[in-house]
């Protein structure tokens, strides 16, 4: 591990020639790590046709792109993509590799880690570089988010992490950055095709996209019943936002899992997150803590949700939320 290449790689996940949003978030965070470590920030792009995506990768801070093209890389298939990424790692020996914790990343990263006896830390919420020990500090919630743990990887390289979307903010450097493109050929002809995608369906979920919403109003056990979610919807509509929910309410069948926010649901990053009747089992907090501003409404003034709130309203949500809706509507009319 002493002879590694001083590089930080971001796996540039793409589908149909479109880069995933999390790639830009990882590059933006990767720049900070690069500045602190002195390593070079690079993107790894495996696709059927990578060139049209290069400019955007440079614009978000990649100094170098490892570009692997092959018709077999048209759609994601774990056997091909893990072979590509692992071959590149073997050849170039980077220090750090970051992946989005998407369906693809959560399949690719563990496979690559096993192939190379590399350390992999899932769902990091904070990354930092320890200049003294020259290692990546990977912080993540554990035990359903009840505690935070900082993980290091002292003796194995590369150090690899996955990060969910919306955990880091994306920030473009400029619109005309330049960098180096390294074209790499990797022979995939020897890999037997063990699985074949026969269909890919994009579903229109009939809910406002939680990940894109500026305002999210979420309900927890304190909402009391499925019918009472109307109160939550009322405020979400008045604000032009989306409805979120805690795991308890989803498990109880009060609302569909599409609404679930938390460690096992969606990670969201709205301008304002309003938690109504949510105690704040940190499994939930892990999914919304990066909201710009958090408002908690709860009867129990000791509820842990108040620990992360900017504003706490102690009282009955069934009175406060309709009042909130009324005053917002009055303001907007």
């Amino acid at each position, binding site marked *: 591990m002493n002879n590694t290449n001083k590089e930080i790689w971001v796996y540039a996940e793409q589908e149909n020639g479109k880069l995933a949003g999390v790639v830009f978030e990882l590059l933006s965070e990767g720049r900070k790590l690069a500045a602190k470590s002195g390593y070079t920030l690079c993107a790894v792009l495996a696709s059927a046709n990578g060139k049209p995506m290069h400019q955007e990768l440079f614009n978000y801070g990649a100094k170098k792109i490892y570009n692997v093209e092959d018709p077999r890389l048209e759609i994601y298939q774990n*056997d091909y993509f893990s072979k590509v990424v692992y071959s590149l790692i073997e050849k170039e020996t980077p220090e750090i590799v970051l992946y989005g914790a998407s*369906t693809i990343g*959560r*399949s690719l990263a*563990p*496979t690559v*880690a*096993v*192939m190379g*006896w*590399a350390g*992999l*830390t*899932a*769902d990091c919420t904070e990354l930092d570089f320890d200049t003294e020990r020259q290692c990546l*500090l990977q912080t993540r*919630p*554990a*035990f*359903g*988010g*009840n*505690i*935070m*743990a*900082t*993980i*290091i*990887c*002292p003796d194995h390289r590369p150090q690899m992490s996955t990060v969910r979307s919306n955990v880091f903010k994306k920030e473009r450097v400029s619109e005309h950055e330049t960098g180096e493109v390294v074209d790499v050929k990797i022979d995939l002809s020897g890999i037997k095709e*063990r*699985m*074949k*995608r*026969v*269909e*890919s*369906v*994009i*579903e229109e979920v009939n809910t406002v996209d939680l990940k894109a919403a500026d305002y999210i109003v979420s309900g927890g056990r304190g909402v009391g019943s499925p019918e009472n979610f109307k109160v939550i919807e009322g405020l979400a509509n008045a604000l032009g936002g989306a409805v979120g929910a805690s795991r*308890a309410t989803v498990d109880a069948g009060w609302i569909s*899992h599409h609404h679930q926010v938390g460690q*096992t649901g969606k990670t969201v990053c709205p*301008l*304002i997150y309003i938690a109504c009747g949510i105690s704040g089992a940190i*499994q939930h907090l892990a999914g919304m803590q990066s909201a*710009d*501003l958090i408002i908690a409404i709860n009867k129990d003034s000791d509820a842990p949700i108040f*620990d*992360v709130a*900017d*504003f*706490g*309203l*102690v009282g*009955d949500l069934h*009175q*406060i939320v309709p*009042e*909130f809706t009324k005053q917002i509507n009055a303001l907007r009319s």
Partner: protein
Amino acid sequence: MHIVVCIKQVPDSDKVTIDRETNRLNRAGVPSIINPFDENALEMALQLKDKHGGKITVISMGPPQAEEALRTAMSHGADDAILISDRKFGGADTWATSYTITLALKKLTEPVDLILFGKQAIDGDTAQVGPGVAHFFGVPMITYAKSCEVTDAGFRVQQVTDHGYNVWDVEKPAALTVVKEANSLRMPSLKKKMASKKAVIPVWGVEQLQPDETKIGLAGSPTKVNKVFAPPVKLNKEILSGEPADMVKELIYKLREKKVL
């Protein structure tokens, strides 16, 4: 058809709290359960067995008390169980865990057609062991499976994606991780519950699995825990109380002051 379901015994994380003064988990009295997603994997196996026959083996790696989770799985309908347990396996991260479970799979005498995992465990939430085992064992892996049907050559699997779903044809043997939307676990039967209590569950440790000892437990784990701490608490918070109308009025005033509304 021989289906192996890998399950993990976990503390019910909804009931775990943290002591803010010592930064330790209050685990006393917190019940142990089968990881909820592993229940979906088990039910998927049971449904495949209902339709096509065969045998279900459940495997768990953990301390001796994980045997309880295996007996529970048998009360729901699993036929056989194996516990992977040895002090030397302690402290394993997902890499070393994947390696160790794979050794157990290789030791099974009956050929395996399908290996099922829950999509992730609720204590670690890593979702890494399924794909890790699949690679070590040398079988194709499909994550986030919602359904699985038997085909001539293997399986047709619906995979939940970030925006919808994919349908895959995968050859057997294969490995899948299963999502909650797939199903919900049936009730245990009284007869099976009685039988599960008497079942003999073999325990496989270092002696039985003959691992490369540099690849197990803490020593075989590339990742180490550097520090554990309580989630941060916001300091500049404002707590309002009183009449709902007044609280809301004050809140809206402050939000507008901050220009977020």
